[in-house]
């Protein structure tokens, strides 16, 4: 589903490569933790998958797309099949919960009819049916992240990329989000989650890919966060 082949990424402003000859292969339906300290290259890896960046060397594949070689006009198609959530939720503050989810469908050209059926479905999936008309400012952090997840899933992506989705949440709320991500994964969506959260990684016992200074340090099928450094 996702494949990086000997990928290096060097930013023009930095002497050290952000990623250095990294190869990773993720099967459809897997749940993968991407761990490593700040600056280890986790975000760069996610950005390469989304074609926010192109690799300096190596190839990136998502499903059947050769991501680095994809013509610009086809990038939207790629991104429609990839859901994204972030530490800071990135909701539109002037739109209600339902409208935030609808936004992803609207700007990708889905019909009124599709929007009317998919939005309630997504809100039900993330357990926010009663809060469709709330504004983002009225939500707790956990609720806001669930709206972001509903939006990311609205276009039925093949892969969900989550960049520190629990970074702004307390442990209990984090557990709820992890239960939700686990449920989404069990329903068939591949999940790649970058995180710093030792407890979560140790509790889930899923595949762990660790980056250190841009190099692949570890790839365990059922890993833990690892020894304290």
């Amino acid at each position, binding site marked *: 589903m996702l494949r990086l082949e000997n990928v290096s990424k060097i930013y023009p402003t930095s002497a050290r490569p952000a990623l250095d000859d990294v190869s990773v292969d993720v099967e459809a339906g897997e749940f993968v933790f991407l761990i490593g300290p700040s600056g280890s290259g986790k975000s760069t890896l996610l950005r390469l998958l989304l074609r926010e960046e192109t690799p300096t060397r190596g190839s990136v594949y998502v499903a059947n797309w050769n991501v680095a070689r994809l013509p610009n006009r086809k990038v939207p198609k790629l991104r429609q099949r990839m859901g994204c959530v972030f530490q800071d939720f990135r909701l539109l503050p002037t739109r209600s919960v339902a409208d935030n989810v609808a936004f992803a469908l609207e*700007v*990708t050209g889905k019909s009124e009819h599709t929007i009317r059926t998919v939005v309630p479905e997504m809100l039900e999936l993330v357990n926010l049916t009663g809060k469709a008309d709330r504004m983002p400012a009225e939500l707790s952090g956990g609720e806001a992240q669930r709206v972001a997840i509903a939006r990311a899933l609205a276009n039925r992506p093949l892969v969900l990329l989550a960049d520190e989705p629990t970074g702004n949440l307390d442990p209990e709320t984090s557990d709820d989000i992890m239960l939700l991500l686990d449920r989404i994964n069990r329903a068939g969506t591949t999940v790649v989650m970058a995180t710093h959260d030792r407890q979560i990684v140790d509790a889930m016992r899923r595949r762990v890919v660790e980056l250190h200074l841009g190099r692949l340090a570890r790839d365990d099928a059922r890993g833990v966060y690892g020894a304290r450094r």
Partner: protein
Amino acid sequence: MNGLGFVWREAVAGLRRNVTMSVAMMLTTAISLGMLGAGLLAVRTIDRTQDLYYSQLAVQVALDEPTSAGDPDCGSPVCRGLRDQLQADPLVAGVTYESRDAAFQRFLRIYAGQSILQLVRPQSLPATLRVTLKDPTRGDAIVQEFSTRPGVRNVVDQRRLVEDLFTFLGSVRNAAFGLASVQALAALLLISNTIQVSAFTRRTEVGIMRLVGATRWYTQVPFLIEAVITGVVGAILATGGLVLGKLFFIDRLLSGRLISNAIPAVGMSDVLLFVAPLLIVIGAVIAAATGYVTLRLYVRS
């Protein structure tokens, strides 16, 4: 179409979010297009005036006193010789003879009731050969060729006499176009700046759009529509300005006794059917082009 509604709503929301800038943009565009329109009307008036004059203007070959005297039909050998030579000239379209008496009658008609009539006798006026040319700009050649012929008093190219008028109208046109282009530059910069501000204000929204896989249609076209609306509204305001200018300025100016027969009036159809559609098309196209270039240069797709 689903996306059309979205793009339109976003564009209108963009214009409303920044009302002061939108109004400044539209007014600047309007003034620029108004100047352009005035210039176009001047060009049209010049063309019409030239048509009006050039159809009537001729090169007048005035005959000297002995040749003019007592010759009602160009029967004298000198007159006939000149007429034949003129008719044989490849530049000449036609030659008509006006005798001294006919000239005097015309003079009486033109200046009826004025004191100058007391001073003029038929003898003061020459008989003339009126020469119309195939190309009215080639009068010089006839002047040169025939001025020194025997029996000729002088040769006058009437076109020379009205050239000052065209020089004046031409400078009106040039001034209008000059102001239009300076103002157009200001309008372009304003449109470009407004799009940048607009894109910056909406960066979160556009960022999310890009993330969920919105195509350029959704991320960029709203900004283009914003610019095009500005251009079209500017053109409509400019047309309104030109209509007012015509009614309260041009019409009064050209209705003066002296000038009313010299310059043809500017018609309402010239403003509404000729200039207005041009301004709308030019306004829309230039605004869209500015928007496109701005997005290319300053806004990440």
